[in-house]
C-alpha cells in the first residue's frame, strides 16, 4: 500500500495527503495514474534553474507596497497598546534593525495558570517593572545627617505585594556603597563614603529609577483573553528574563524581535519569526503576497547563520563580486577598497555582466555548451 506512494517521492507531503484523501475508494491502477499526473505537473510547476526569482520577489513586494504607503502610521493592536504597522514595520523587519520601534512580547502561560484570572493578574503584576518612585510618596534630603529619606507608600506596596525588607535588600544589592535602613515606612539612605552635595543629589535621581521588582524594561502589561486562555502582551523584547518568570510557557512565548529569538532559540526560529511577522503585517493591511516570496526573503536573510538585513551592510556586503556591491550603494568606497587589496571579479553574476555589456547568466544565458566529441571525429580532424 505504502510502496505506491514511495514511488512518487517528489510530490510534497501536503499534496500527497490531499491525493490520499481524494483517491479514497479508487483502485490501485487509477490511483497510480493520478499520482503520475500530479508528479508530472509538479515537476512542470517547479521554478526552472536560472529563473530570476529575486526580481520576481522584489516586484511582488513592490506593487502592494505602494498601497501600503498611504496607511503607514496606524495605531492598532490589542487594548491601548500601540504597534508599528504597515510599510514602516516591513522595512524595519527586512532591514534587520537591531530592535523594533515597538517591541512586543506575547506571553503564553502554562497549564494551571492560563485559565485562572487571579493567577494571570498576579503574573502580569510581577512582570511589570516597578521603580522606587512608583512605591514612594516623597524623596527628601536630611542635610544634618547627610542622607536621603524616602517615604514609602504602604498602600501601593501592599497592592504590589512588596515588603519593606525586600526593598531594602534590593537597594543594597543594586546600588553598592549604600547604607540603607528602614524606619517604619521611611527609608534612610546614606552613602558609606561622605560625598559632596551634588553627589547626594545625583544619588537621589538614581534612587528614583532603581528597579524594585519585575522584568527590566517592561512598561505596559496587558492580559487578553483569547479563546479559552489568557495571553499577556507586554511592551518589551527582553525574552530572556520573561522566560524566568514562574508560570510562563517558555515553549510558546514569542517576541517580535528576530535578533532576540536568534540568540535564544537559534537561526531557524528567527527565520520563522521573520516570516510570521511579515505575513502578519501584510495580512493586517488587507494585502496578499504569496508566502513563498516571504519565505525566500527570510531564507536569504538567515543564509549566513546570522540575521542580515537587505541593506548595504547586510546581504549586499556578502556578495562576491566587487562590481555587484558597488552597483547597490556607496560605489566609490567599494571600488577603492577592492583596488587597494587587489580583489578579483570573476563576473559570475548578473549586474557586473550588465555593466560590461555581456550576456547575463540568467534564464537562457545560464547554460554553457558542453559537448562530448566522438573519438573518431577528433582523430579525423587531426588528420
Amino acid at each position, binding site marked *: 500500500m505504502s510502496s505506491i506512494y514511495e514511488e512518487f517521492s517528489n510530490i510534497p507531503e501536503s499534496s500527497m495527503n490531499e491525493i490520499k484523501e481524494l483517491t479514497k475508494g479508487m483502485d490501485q491502477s487509477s490511483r497510480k495514474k493520478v499520482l503520475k499526473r500530479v508528479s508530472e505537473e509538479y515537476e512542470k510547476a517547479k521554478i526552472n534553474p536560472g529563473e530570476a526569482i529575486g526580481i520576481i520577489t522584489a516586484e511582488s513586494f513592490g506593487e502592494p507596497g505602494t498601497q501600503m504607503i498611504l496607511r503607514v502610521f496606524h495605531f492598532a493592536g490589542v487594548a491601548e497598546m500601540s504597534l508599528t504597522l504597515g510599510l514602516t514595520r516591513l522595512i524595519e523587519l527586512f532591514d534587520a534593525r537591531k530592535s523594533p520601534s515597538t517591541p512586543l512580547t506575547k506571553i503564553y502561560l502554562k497549564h494551571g495558570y492560563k485559565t485562572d484570572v487571579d493567577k494571570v493578574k498576579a503574573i502580569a503584576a510581577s512582570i511589570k517593572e516597578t521603580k522606587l518612585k512608583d512605591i514612594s510618596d516623597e524623596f527628601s534630603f536630611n542635610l544634618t545627617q547627610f542622607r536621603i529619606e524616602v517615604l514609602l507608600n504602604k498602600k501601593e506596596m501592599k497592592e504590589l505585594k512588596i515588603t519593606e525588607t525586600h526593598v531594602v535588600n534590593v537597594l543594597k544589592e543594586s546600588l553598592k556603597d549604600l547604607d540603607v535602613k528602614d524606619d517604619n515606612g521611611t527609608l534612610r539612605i546614606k552613602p558609606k563614603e561622605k560625598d559632596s552635595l551634588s553627589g547626594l543629589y545625583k544619588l537621589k535621581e538614581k534612587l528614583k529609577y532603581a528597579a524594585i521588582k519585575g522584568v527590566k524594561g517592561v512598561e505596559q502589561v496587558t492580559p487578553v483573553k483569547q479563546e479559552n486562555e489568557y495571553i499577556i502582551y507586554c511592551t518589551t523584547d527582553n525574552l530572556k528574563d520573561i522566560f524566568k518568570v514562574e508560570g510562563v510557557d517558555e515553549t510558546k512565548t514569542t517576541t517580535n524581535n528576530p535578533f532576540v529569538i536568534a540568540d535564544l*532559540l537559534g537561526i531557524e*526560529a528567527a527565520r520563522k519569526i521573520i516570516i510570521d511577522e511579515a505575513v502578519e503585517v501584510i495580512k493586517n493591511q488587507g494585502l496578499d503576497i504569496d508566502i513563498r516570496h516571504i519565505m525566500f526573503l527570510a531564507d536569504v536573510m538567515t*543564509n549566513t547563520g546570522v540575521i542580515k538585513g537587505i541593506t548595504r551592510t547586510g546581504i549586499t556586503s556578502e556578495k562576491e563580486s566587487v562590481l555587484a556591491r558597488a552597483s547597490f550603494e556607496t560605489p566609490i568606497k567599494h571600488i577603492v577598497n577592492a583596488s587597494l587589496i587587489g580583489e578579483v571579479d570573476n563576473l559570475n553574476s548578473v549586474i557586473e555582466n550588465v555593466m560590461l555589456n555581456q550576456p547575463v547568466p540568467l534564464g537562457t544565458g545560464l547554460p554553457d555548451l558542453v559537448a562530448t566529441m566522438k573519438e573518431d571525429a577528433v582523430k579525423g580532424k587531426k588528420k
Partner: protein
Amino acid sequence: MVEHTLIPEHKKLNEEDSEKILKKFNISRKQLPKIKANDPAILKFEPKKGDIIEIIRESPTTGKSLFYRVVA
C-alpha cells in the same frame, strides 16, 4: 535543552549521509547555508565545523520540507 514551537527539528547527519546530500545537490560544503556552531538549537549535538545539519521544517506550502545547513 531548548524547546520551542518556533524551532523545527534539527538532526546532525553522519558522514555517509552528508556525502549523499552533497552528491544529490552536486555542491560542496561551502555552498550550503550556514549555521553557527553555538546556535542554541544544535548545541546538544556538540557540532564541529563542517558538520551538516538536517532541518525538518513544517512549511505552510509543502508540509514537511527538508533543509540543510553546514556548521560554520
